[in-house]
């Protein structure tokens, strides 16, 4: 394994994975390996995983105060590494390790004389009880800055700890709007567009794409997963679509873990809207596609908002031909910069997992952290925090403008661009500045 194990752990039971992000680690495959790996699996990415009766944590409440002689910068990664959210959680945590690895390859943190970036991982199992606990563990292990957690309730608990202890927390993914909004947080940041932003981007962008291509989109039918994430997008779409003169004529929900979407498609079919908007995890979208084909139905425009399915290469190839032409808006990798392809191939080499949009977003969060440390030239939490406040980070691989945070910690330029499945691969098609292909309407 990589060379670094934090020295401060020596007198304690080792309970967190410390992963050396050195070049040597490049040759090693990640722990989770499977060809079916993908982002936003059919697990409840945003739901509080109701995993069984376990809980608790390990360490004291003391904040790991960084030593003065800085030879490493420690990022604490707080993600679900086991349990029903782990399929994506493991990939996200790996992406963070990759970001550290790449930085170290470049010679580490310049402003800290080449200090290495180390990632330590904690497994929150997708359980709300463990969110704060794992944050504390990571901090007591010496983490200088935190990231996580995929599930919103877990993130809520995790960020609370960071805020109280005055340590910056850059959210990798957590869609719920209220994690930041109105919370008065001073140490928490989110590069990713939250649910409401994604829905408003859908309303702004997708109808434009369709109408620019000469199509008509006056009516829409929603197909959403009936959990917080699905309902949040639904509620926001209800708000924003009418502003773009799209009327929602049908709404139909699918239960988490449902075995098919037959009924829902029957309902959409009898409403026959101009577009179906899917908001689901991977499994839900696959069921939708399956049921649509089984009932030989496809609306003029099959679209998705913040759906994991149509940005997931494996899911798209599982669905096959039928997926072609689907328009989806979601946070995405920026195909117009070379770095994206480079990072993707490195990730595939190292972890044998798909570099999905979710995983890419976690990668970006890690880069934001690294960049902030670089600018701070310090591992003092408050220094990093100041750097984050003033950060303007352009050299990232997500399809959005420079990452800058507002007072609440939201990324001002967060964006969910429009992707389209073309020839069974996912391409960004709009806005033009990030587009790798023309939308086909």
């Amino acid at each position, binding site marked *: 394994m990589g060379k670094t194990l934090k020295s401060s752990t020596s007198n304690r039971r080792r309970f967190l994975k410390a992963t050396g992000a050195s070049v040597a680690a490049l040759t090693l495959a990640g722990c989770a390996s*499977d060809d*079916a790996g993908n982002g936003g699996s059919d697990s409840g990415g945003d739901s509080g995983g109701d995993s069984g009766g376990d809980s608790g944590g390990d360490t004291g409440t003391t904040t790991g105060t960084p030593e003065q002689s800085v030879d490493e910068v420690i990022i604490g990664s707080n993600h679900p590494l086991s349990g029903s959210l782990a399929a994506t959680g*493991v990939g996200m945590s790996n992406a963070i390790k990759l970001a550290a690895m790449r930085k170290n390859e470049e010679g580490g943190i310049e402003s800290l004389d080449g200090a290495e970036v180390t990632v330590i991982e904690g497994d929150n199992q997708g359980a709300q009880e463990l969110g704060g606990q794992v944050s504390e563990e990571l901090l007591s292990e010496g983490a200088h800055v935190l990231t996580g957690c995929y599930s919103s309730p877990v993130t809520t608990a995790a960020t609370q700890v960071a805020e109280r202890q005055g340590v910056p927390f850059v959210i990798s993914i957590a869609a719920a709007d209220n994690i930041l909004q109105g919370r008065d947080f001073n140490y928490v940041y989110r590069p990713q567009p939250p649910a409401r932003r994604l829905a408003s981007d859908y309303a702004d962008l997708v109808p434009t794409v369709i109408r620019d291509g000469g199509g008509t989109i006056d009516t829409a039918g929603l197909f959403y997963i009936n959990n917080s994430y699905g309902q949040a997008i639904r509620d926001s779409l*209800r708000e924003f679509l009418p502003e773009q003169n799209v009327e*929602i004529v049908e*709404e139909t929900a699918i239960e988490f873990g449902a075995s098919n979407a037959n009924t829902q498609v029957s309902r959409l079919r009898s409403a026959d809207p101009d577009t179906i908007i899917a908001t689901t995890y991977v499994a839900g979208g696959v069921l939708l596609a*399956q049921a649509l084909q089984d*009932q030989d139905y496809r609306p003029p425009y099959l679209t998705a908002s913040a759906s994991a399915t149509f940005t997931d290469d494996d899911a798209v190839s599982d669905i096959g031909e039928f997926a072609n032409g689907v328009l989806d808006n979601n946070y995405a990798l920026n195909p117009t910069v070379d770095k994206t392809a480079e990072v993707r191939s490195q990730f595939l080499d190292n972890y044998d997992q798909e570099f999905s949009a979710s995983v890419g977003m976690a990668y970006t969060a890690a880069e934001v952290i690294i960049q902030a440390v670089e600018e701070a030239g310090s591992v003092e939490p408050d220094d990093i925090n100041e750097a984050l406040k003033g950060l303007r980070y352009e050299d990232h691989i997500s399809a959005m403008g420079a990452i800058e945070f507002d007072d609440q910690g939201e990324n001002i330029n967060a964006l969910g661009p429009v992707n389209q499945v073309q020839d069974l691969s996912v391409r960004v098609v709009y806005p033009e500045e990030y587009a790798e292909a023309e939308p086909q309407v």
Partner: protein
Amino acid sequence: MGHLVTSVAPLPLQGGGLGRFIDPFVQFLTDITNLEPVLLQLLAFGLLLGGVYALTALGLTMIFGVMDVINFAHGVFLVVGMYSVWLVSEMAGISPFLGIPIAAAVLFVLGVVVHVLTVEPIIEAPQQNQLIATLGVLFIIQSAIEIVFTPDPQQVELSLGSIQVGGVFIPLGQFYALVIALGTMLAVRAFLNRTDLGRKIRGTADNRDGARYVGINVRRINYLTFGIGAALAGVAGGSIALFQRFDPFTGETYLINAFVIVILGGLGSFPGAFVGGLIVGMIQVFGGYYLPGTTAQVLIFLLFIGTLLVKPEGLFGGAEA
């Protein structure tokens, strides 16, 4: 959160107030009077879904009925069945259909092992202890699968598509599952009614002391029953794998509905499980079509509670299996 329901143009089936409870029924009645073709389609979907549900309940009803044990590990048994079929077809390249009997065999062995190690020692203990023991088994098997096969979802490579009969679409994957469910039910019924072993199982379920008096080895019947119940879960899981992606946690959603079906149909009753499955399937399909969100599941639980209260022996309770 001010942008909730109010700002949305009223949908036929949405909105607050009492309307959301009444409108769906009005709509339903209107559709019936108009003989909407969609009703036939929904009926078909309900039948298909019901078949799948019935299949998931067969093993549970057997174990519950014969041994009076609530097996919380049943859901994860389904998952083992799914992975078995997947492994067989991915690794050995055998048709997933042939994987189903293999899944049954694997589960039979697993069932016997689980029974001998965890259930048998406490078969006479308070019922909640068995419940907690099988819950422990659930955690163990689920996490073992997660460790071995990763939490990533898997899929059996099989595109079955659908056929159309008189304007009604029949997705083939689910159709096969329905056929397997019917076939399994008939086979198990024949096994229980026609064979000596089956008769012994029924006898033991009926009167454990009586079984002892006539010289049935009740201990053996117990682990065979648990094994067969698990094997049925294997068949069910294997059939579901034909048309659904799955991960180590897929079983949980089926588990609760399987309990509902077992109670609806009556403990140990196979026709009961089938009818119970159909009822739950129909409610989910028609409820899913007419009611907002996933309100249909509320109806299912109300029906479940009602059955428990008024007719705890179930629709087919007391009748022969």
